[in-house]
């Protein structure tokens, strides 16, 4: 099958973007515990699939409905990826679906799924190699078509296919020229300071723990902290109150009902990103217009530039 045939099949299944790279290339780029060779040495092509978040979801008010909608995009993408893999198998190729968010805790943890549950860090790095986009200031994948408003799924296969090439230029405008994701981040998880004129690669990053406090508010990490807190109390009334708390109910709700949504609790950074053809439509939403009503305030101090967090702006 050609790349065009695979992309056409994927498009019919509702998958928006398909990028191809080789496992050999990724071996040199990824940490050992998440290298493709840990999964298979006999499926040489690595595909990254992306499905965009419908504009309506990005334009909606923040809250559980939006969080659940993000989970549904993940689910629909995973089902479509499976159909694509069965389609490849019908043509006599081998293919296996790689989860976007599920983890082998011996190799990585839930912080690799920050920010916003777009997909694991290794899948985002693979997407860059496969030419789907570039990494933004906050380590999210930005695509030309939808900016960071995509969720990802992976696939390994023995298709005989030439890899796509990474994009040459950064899509992210960086801190000096944009910085909207950093300004709006409620956890202050995204860099707000850099050297003036520095290339993005020098300062982009993410404080995964700070991000997870918002994007995984009742996720796996919080569940451990919550259960631990039962044993840190001496007073039985306090312990009982902790057990009976909303926190316990919400943990169960995120674990059993929200599912992938347990990783998509905050999507502020992806909805303010100006990259992508969908941005203009999203900005017609009154909710989005309230995200950063006065834009981003930056200060230059000597060699450095820094931007204010929206809370600082409000105060």
């Amino acid at each position: 099958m050609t790349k065009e045939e695979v992309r056409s099949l994927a498009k019919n299944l509702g998958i928006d973007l398909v990028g191809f790279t080789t496992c050999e290339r990724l071996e040199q780029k990824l940490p050992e515990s998440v290298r493709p060779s840990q999964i298979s040495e006999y499926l040489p092509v690595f595909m990254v699939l992306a499905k965009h978040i419908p504009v309506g979801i990005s334009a909606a008010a923040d809250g559980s409905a939006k969080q659940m909608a993000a989970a549904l995009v993940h689910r629909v993408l995973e089902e479509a990826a499976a159909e694509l893999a069965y389609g490849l198998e019908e043509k006599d190729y081998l293919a296996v679906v790689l989860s976007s968010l599920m983890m082998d805790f011996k190799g990585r943890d839930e912080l690799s799924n920050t920010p916003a549950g777009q997909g694991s860090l290794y899948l985002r790095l693979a997407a860059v190699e496969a030419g789907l986009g570039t990494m933004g200031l906050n380590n999210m994948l930005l695509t030309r078509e939808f900016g960071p408003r995509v969720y990802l799924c992976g696939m390994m296969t023995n298709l005989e296919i030439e890899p796509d090439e990474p994009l040459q230029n950064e899509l992210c405008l960086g801190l000096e020229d944009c910085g909207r994701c950093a300004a709006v981040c409620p956890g202050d998880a995204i860099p707000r300071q850099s050297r003036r004129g520095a290339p993005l690669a020098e300062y982009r990053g993410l404080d995964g723990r700070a991000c997870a406090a918002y994007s995984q508010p009742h996720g796996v990490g919080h569940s451990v902290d919550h259960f631990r807190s039962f044993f840190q109390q001496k007073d039985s009334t306090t312990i009982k109150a902790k057990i009976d708390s909303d926190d316990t109910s919400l943990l169960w709700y995120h674990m059993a009902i929200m599912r992938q949504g347990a990783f998509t609790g905050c999507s502020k950074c992806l909805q303010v990103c100006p990259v992508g053809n969908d941005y203009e439509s999203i900005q017609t939403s009154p909710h989005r217009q309230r995200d950063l009503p006065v834009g981003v305030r930056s200060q230059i101090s000597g060699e450095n530039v820094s931007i204010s967090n929206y809370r600082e702006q409000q105060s």
Partner: protein
Amino acid sequence: MTLTEELFEFARSRGADSIGVVSAEAYEAKVPNLQKPSTSAMGMKSLICFVKHMLTGSFATRDVPVQSLNSHVCMDGVERISMELAEWLEKRGYLGIPVPPEAADMNLQRSPAGTLDFKWVAEESGVGTVGLELNLLTPDYGPRVYIGVVMTDAALDSTPKMEQHLCPGMKCGRCAVICPTQAIPLRAPRDAHITEYRNLDKRACASGAERIGIKPLLLNLRKLIFTSPPPDPQRVVDHVYWKEFWQSINSKLGAFAACFECFYVCPPGAKDFKKIIRIPYRRMDIPPGKVGRRHFDDMVEMVYRGVPEERKAVYERDQDFGEVLQGGKNP
């Protein structure tokens, strides 16, 4: 084209690999317990049974969580097809009830059980035959399938049971000699038929295949509460087990389908086994000629091998949690 033929064509077009029908009355008469159609719904005339295979590419990996994900992806497909078949029947004026493939009822037997035991529905409807390890084996994909059943009040044409059993039993025994928990029979009377000795120690199987499922949770809670002196609660809570437990509820990963050893090595499967056995990981599972047997006057016994050395850690990964629960040494 008959209604049954139309239904089969639709099921295949939606992703079912093979499909059969058994009359509800005929099946009901054979079931010795409450896992029979009338327990769930009166008036059903036919049981439609179909299978969908797990992606063959899954077996070209050595990563069990990736394989688990792909088994759940397959099961999601089975559930979708079940629903679509029920809707197809309803549009034609019949009732269709998708039977849950993984949900358990606590009142049917002494242990949790499905409302129907799908492997026997599959055998009775001619979709395959039940093998030594009580997996359904199918001609095209051996045991590497997941099963769906839809009950209907439509009187569909029954499909015949398969005349030949697909499992060679003790003449093969590859599933038994590799099973990491020794849940599959390793011995049988000489010249006995597969139907006389096929079996599964479900509790042993569950300790591998449902590693973070309900049974291990109950055992761990029991240890946590009754071990004396009690284990350090901080060490218990801090263990990766709880993260995996969270994930098993969140995604089923580890709760079901956490061991595929018997799938890897089973030779039936006209459409997949030749591809599978060409994969080096799978060739190493049981190298050719390495299944040993001892013959006694009245018995044949397989020589147990277990899983390859490099895979043992997969099944021993919870050992340190057991030590924590027993108040054992610090990791």
